[in-house]
């Protein structure tokens, strides 16, 4: 009952936000529309002259482009809204998959399922991305689907069908956002470990081959057209990786300001506080706020205080998410469970890939640091939070009431920010 209520509320929230959010305020909105238009109307991939996000894989743009075409044909406006609703639907699917992932791992722990679901649903980065005209949530939904199939197969036994399903889902995820590739690598690695133990390599071969059939042509095209399968819309600066970012990028010296004034331009390009402020709030001011002010201009104090409140609210859940990932790794090692181990492995792969990306492509305006770039880790983080809280919560009636109260508070305090 509670699960159904959360999912209905989440579906309503995401649809409402997608309907009311100005599509042009989302990340790369105009470039995304140019891409979708090029794919749908001209049936080709965009060149760097056509769209600034030409380096992004085409699946979401093809779907959004078809919806855009239909909206234009029927006179629905704005033509980008169906693409936003697609992102919202994918955001809801992510929440459902988090729930299913929890049920797959610990079927009888209902409180754990609910905690994981609530954490995912109330994550501001997911809610914001679900309103944007942007491919991120679709990629996360597809990758989380692949992760779920893989966890099920690792818990039971890989079959040709589960290998095919996981390969298709992860391949399509890779065809939507490159952030899905670390998930594919983690699943492939876990499947290899399982195959090594069982002496059955055919399912792994099917999984990898299926994913490569889907994502391979895109990567080959990028290699041939732009010189790298992971080409980006700017050249990496020359020189060693060690010198591309200053020490402040790694250390985050202005971390305390992320709790007090978590908006641009403060602590720009300081990885941890910048990412944290953008995950729990809206560092770049693209959500329910005026655009970033020009020099000398003042931001309304309510904009800053609302985001500061978000930063404070996010402290405990962030620690719990990290704790959960560590705890899942410890449980996986203790039980020799590849199925559980796949989750922290995925989180580490996504975090490592993202950090490498942010170091390889430094930017003066901080546009390569966004909370939504780490959404691929949300399903694992959600399961981690659910696991830690459910495992450590007091079992008395008072303890249960305290846990429920804390979860309700976590959601209610965020509602003014999450609802547009």
């Amino acid at each position: 009952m509670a699960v159904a209520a959360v999912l209905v509320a989440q579906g309503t929230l995401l649809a409402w936000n997608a309907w009311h959010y100005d599509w042009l305020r989302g990340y790369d909105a105009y470039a995304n529309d140019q891409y979708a238009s090029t794919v749908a109307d001209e049936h080709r991939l965009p060149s760097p002259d056509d769209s600034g996000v030409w380096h992004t894989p085409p699946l979401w743009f093809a779907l959004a482009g078809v919806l855009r075409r239909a909206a234009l044909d029927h006179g629905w406006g704005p033509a980008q809204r169906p693409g936003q609703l697609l992102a919202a639907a994918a955001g809801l699917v992510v929440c459902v998959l988090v729930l299913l992932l929890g049920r797959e791992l610990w079927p009888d722990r209902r409180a754990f399922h609910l905690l994981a679901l609530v954490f995912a649903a109330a994550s501001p980065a997911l809610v914001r991305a679900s309103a944007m005209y942007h491919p991120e949530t679709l990629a996360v939904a597809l990758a989380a689907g692949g992760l779920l199939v893989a966890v099920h197969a690792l818990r039971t036994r890989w079959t040709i069908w589960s290998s095919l399903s996981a390969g298709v889902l992860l391949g399509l995820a890779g065809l939507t956002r490159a952030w899905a590739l670390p998930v594919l690598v983690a699943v492939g690695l876990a499947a290899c470990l399982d195959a090594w133990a069982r002496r059955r390599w055919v399912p792994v071969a099917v999984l990898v081959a299926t994913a490569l059939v889907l994502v391979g042509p895109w990567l080959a095209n990028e290699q041939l057209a732009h010189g790298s399968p992971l080409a980006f819309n700017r050249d990496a600066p020359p020189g060693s990786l060690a010198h591309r970012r200053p020490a402040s990028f790694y250390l985050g010296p202005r971390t305390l300001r992320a709790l007090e004034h978590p908006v641009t331009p403060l602590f720009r390009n300081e990885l941890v506080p910048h990412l944290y402020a953008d995950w729990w709030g809206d560092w770049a001011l693209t959500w329910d706020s005026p655009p970033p002010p020009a020099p000398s201009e003042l931001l309304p104090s309510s904009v800053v205080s609302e985001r500061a409140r978000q930063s404070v609210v996010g402290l405990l859940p962030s620690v719990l998410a990290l704790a959960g990932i560590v705890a899942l790794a410890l449980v996986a090692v203790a039980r020799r469970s590849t199925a559980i181990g796949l989750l922290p492995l995925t989180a580490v792969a996504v975090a490592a890939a993202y950090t490498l990306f942010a170091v390889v492509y430094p930017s003066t305006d901080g546009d390569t640091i966004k909370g939504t770039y780490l959404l691929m880790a949300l399903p694992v983080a959600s399961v981690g939070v659910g696991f830690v809280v459910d495992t450590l919560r007091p079992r008395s009636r008072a303890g249960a009431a305290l846990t429920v109260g804390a979860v309700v508070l976590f959601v209610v305090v965020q509602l003014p920010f999450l609802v547009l």
Partner: protein
Amino acid sequence: MTERRAAALGLVGASVVALAQLGVGTGWSLSHDDPSELELTKRCLAREKGFTIEDPTDDAVAASAQGGALRTVVEGNLVTLSVATSQQEVERLRAGYEAGDPGDRLDVRGRYVALWLRDPTRSQRQDTYDCAY
């Protein structure tokens, strides 16, 4: 290892990481002061424009500005520049000066409230705009 022990260890590990990050932030905050808008403006007017900066001593409105205030001479025209920290404060400073009927000598732009000795030229105003943060 029990699940409870794993969760507890995870919580300890995550807390250590979080506290270390907060420790870095605290250490930096205690040992460094990020320059205020006023300091940045003073630095800009002095270094990039070559103006002499003074503290306004006889201006009760400027003295009450939460972000501080400065006085300088721009192309022969004396200006007192106050920095507000909120829109309400901007309005308070504006009202404080408007009691003296300054006309075009009062120039409000964003968080900066400028009172000129004589009506400023466009070039004089631009010099102060160039050093606004």
